Each structure stands twice: as C-alpha cells, then as structure tokens.
C-alpha cells in the first residue's frame, strides 16, 4: 500500500517539489562537465574530424527521446490498470520533453548528415522511425489537448502511448534489421566499447545530464498540472505558495 502512497497527486506534489531543483542542478553540472569533456578534452575523430562531436548532443538526446516514450507507456499501463490519477498527469508531463528531444535528435542528425552523407535527410529506416516517434509525441499532445474531459483524455492518450511504444524497439533495432545508411550502435552493453574511453565518458556524462534534465522538467511540469487539475481541492488552497500568491494578488488589487 505504501507503493501507492505517492500515486495521489496530493502526496506527490511536495515530493516532486523537493526533487526537481536537485535534479536540475545536477543536470546543469553534468552537462557543463560533459560538454567540456566532449568539446575540449576529447580528440577529434580519425575519419570524421571535428564533425563527429555532434554525437555528444545527438546520441544522448536520441536515447532519451526513446526512453521517455517508454516511460510514457509505463505510466499509461499503470494508469489503465490501477486507474491512478497521477499516471495520466505524468504521461502528459513527459510528452512535450519527449517531442522536443525527438525533434532535436532529428535536427542534429540532419546537421551531421549534410557533411557526412551529403544530404540533410534520407528515408532511411532509422530516420523514418524516429520521425514517426516525433509524430507519435505530437499526436499524443494533440489528442489529449483536444478532449475536454481530463479523465477521458488521459485514457485516450494512454492508449496512444501504449500502442505507439511498438515503434521504440523498431527504432532501436532498425540499424540491425535493415541495411541502413545510419551507422550501427556505437555503445553496446554486451560488447566492449568501440570508441575511445574519453569519448565514451563525454557521451555518458551528457546522457546522464539529459536524463536528469528530463526528470527535472517533467516533475516541474507535473506540479503545475496537479495544481491546475486539483484547483478545486481544499489541499491546494492551503498550500503556502497558493496562499502567498493569493495574498500578493489581493495586495495588488487593493493597491
């Protein structure tokens, strides 16, 4: 039962408030260190020269775009099975960040593709499935914002999130299943890394930074969503920040 304690928005709100500043701080520090390692310390690549350095942005962002969709699917399953109120809110809070990261992944990939492949875009299996991921994010956002009733909109969105999750393994394995222009995975859990350890360090630092950033921004966003959806509830009206806001508004109204 303790597990579901934080499934109530009322209990999750203060927890998220305590967590997100620390996550954001750590994300900033790690990103600065990761960028320093990636752009200052790591040597240039033997084949690709300086242009390879886009991987310090491109790879972490692409990973996270996929991970966030899986996280959305996870929360959606939880919401559909247990009917917890927080699940829909978490799914919703993750979606804009996922869309942003998917877009950044495509964008940085295009910028890298021009000098390397000679084109910004090809209809390669990896690129196409990533584009579909972006559309899934956008479709989720469009669908949930089109339905007025919040619970119904959460359910409809959850369905999209769960069904669309099929796309994530397709993205991941596309470089193996099809003969793609996109190169294979640079990092693997089963084999020893094929890249220099300093490059790997930079990439992992950036991945951690993006990971923490996504968590921080999602928690920050879910707090606003909780306040908005529970605006009729008594506990919201007793929150110190809400009381302070109201006092400030009254004071301005009086002045």
């Amino acid at each position: 039962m303790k597990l579901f304690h934080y499934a109530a928005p009322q209990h999750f709100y203060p927890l998220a408030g305590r967590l997100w500043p620390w996550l954001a701080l750590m994300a900033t520090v790690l990103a600065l260190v990761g960028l320093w390692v990636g752009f200052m310390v790591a040597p240039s690549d033997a084949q690709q020269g300086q242009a390879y350095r886009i991987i310090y942005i491109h790879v972490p962002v692409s990973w996270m775009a996929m991970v966030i969709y899986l996280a959305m699917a996870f929360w959606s399953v939880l919401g559909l099975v247990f009917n917890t109120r927080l699940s829909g809110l978490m799914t919703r809070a993750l979606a804009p960040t996922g869309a942003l990261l998917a877009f950044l992944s495509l964008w940085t990939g295009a910028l890298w593709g021009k000098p390397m492949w000679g084109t910004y875009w090809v209809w390669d299996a990896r690129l196409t499935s990533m584009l579909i991921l972006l559309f899934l994010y956008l479709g989720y956002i469009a669908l949930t914002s089109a339905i007025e009733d919040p619970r119904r909109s959460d359910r409809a969105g959850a369905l999209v999130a769960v069904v669309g999750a099929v796309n994530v393994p397709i993205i991941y394995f596309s470089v193996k299943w099809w003969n793609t222009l996109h190169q294979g995975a640079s990092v693997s859990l089963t084999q020893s890394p094929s890249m220099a350890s300093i490059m790997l360090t930079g990439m992992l630092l950036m991945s951690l930074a993006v990971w923490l950033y996504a968590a921080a921004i999602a928690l920050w966003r879910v707090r606003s969503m909780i306040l908005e959806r529970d605006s009729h509830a008594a506990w919201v009206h007793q929150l110190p920040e809400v009381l302070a806001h109201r006092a400030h508004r009254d004071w301005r109204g009086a002045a």
Partner: protein
Amino acid sequence: MNTPAMTVPVSALVAQPALPSPWQAMLGLLRRDLRLALRRKAEWLGAVFFFVLVAALFPLAIGPEPATLRLIGPGVLWVAALLASMLSLGRLFDADHQDGSLEQLALSVAPLPWMVSAKLLAHWLISGLPLVLLSPLLGLQFGLGGRGLGHVGAHALDRHARVVTFGCNWRGPHFGCARWRGVAVAFALAFVCAGVGVRHGCGRRADAWPRGRSACVHHVGPLARFSGAQPLGLCGGFALGAGMKREGP
C-alpha cells in the same frame, strides 16, 4: 447658488474619448487576433501539423526512391499546403461571427476595409507564415535542392494568399447559410485554386521548373502574384463589408 462650476456644460465634464486613427484600430485588432491565436494554439497548430504529416506520409506510402520523390515533391507540398490552408480557413471569421464580435467590428467607427485587412493579415501571420517557413524544410525530405526549395516556399506563400483571398470572397456573402457553406466553400476553393494553380504550372515537375521559364521569372512570379492577390483580398473585404451592411440594421 449660481456658482461658476454649474454653468459648465455637461459635455465638457464627460471625458471625450479620442477616436482611434485607422492605423491604431488596425493595429489593435491585429494584436487582439494574434493574442487570441497564442491562447488557442491547438486551432492553428493542427493545420501546421496536418501539413507536416501529409508531406511525410507520401514518401512512406510511395517509397523512398530519390528520383520519384524529387518528381512528386513540389506537387505533394503544393497540395498539402492548399489543404492545410483550407483547414485553417474556418478560423478566419467564424469564431468572431459566432460570438458577435464581427458585428461589433462592422458597426464600429473604424473603416471596415482596414478592419478586414487587419484580420486577413493576422490570419496570414498565424496560419500562412508557418506553412511558408516549413515548406522548404519539408522540401528537404523530398531531396529538393536550393532552387527547388525557393520555389516550394514561394508557392506555399502564393497558395495561402490565394486561399485566403478567395476564402474571404466566398465566405463573406455566405454567412447566412451555415449548413452547406463549409462544404461549398471547400469545393469552390479547391477547384478555383487547383484551376489557377494548374494554369500557372505550379504542379509542374521540379526539374522542369528552372528550364520552363527563366529563373528570374520563376522567383519573382509567385511573389508578384502574391502582391497581386492582396488587392483581391481587399476586394473580398469590401464584399464582406457590403454583405454585412446589407444584413445589418
């Protein structure tokens, strides 16, 4: 008790609001429309999303052969921009018509053509500009090069201007008949725009574009037509104004 204050005429005591100049009224309306659009993002983002999605679905459906894509790219983008423009056309006057603010605009002292121009300009900025900016980006997906991208952008511009002006012309007089006007306007627009587009050769093959006419004409042509379409839009505005004045009190 005949104090001097009592001899002052009442009209001097009541603050006389200064009438806004047409420019001020136009700017105010423009700002209002833009602010409303920023608050209801879903309305116009939907059309933009539609445009991107349609353009991305064609290569998925047809296949990724670069030669084929380069062949169909401009046409697909042209059709997609046309349909997306028609999708967002509904928000040009309908919401204002329903809540009565269109009537108030027509009754206001500000000159009606200025008001309609402001609404057209706001509509173009909200739903036309994103299409124009996006179409070269989508052109990259079809393997179009520098010159082709310029054409695609210019044609999106042209397309949207045409749809808006015709839309304004057609929607204006038809406000009364709500039931069929959506369908009618859609059909009429599709045929009128398609007809004009085909006549101008907008849907021509990409590789034929630079050779068909001189590059200069190609770049300037759509822009010239766009500027030519603006007076048309104003005519639409006048027609709308006249129609409303007839219906009004």
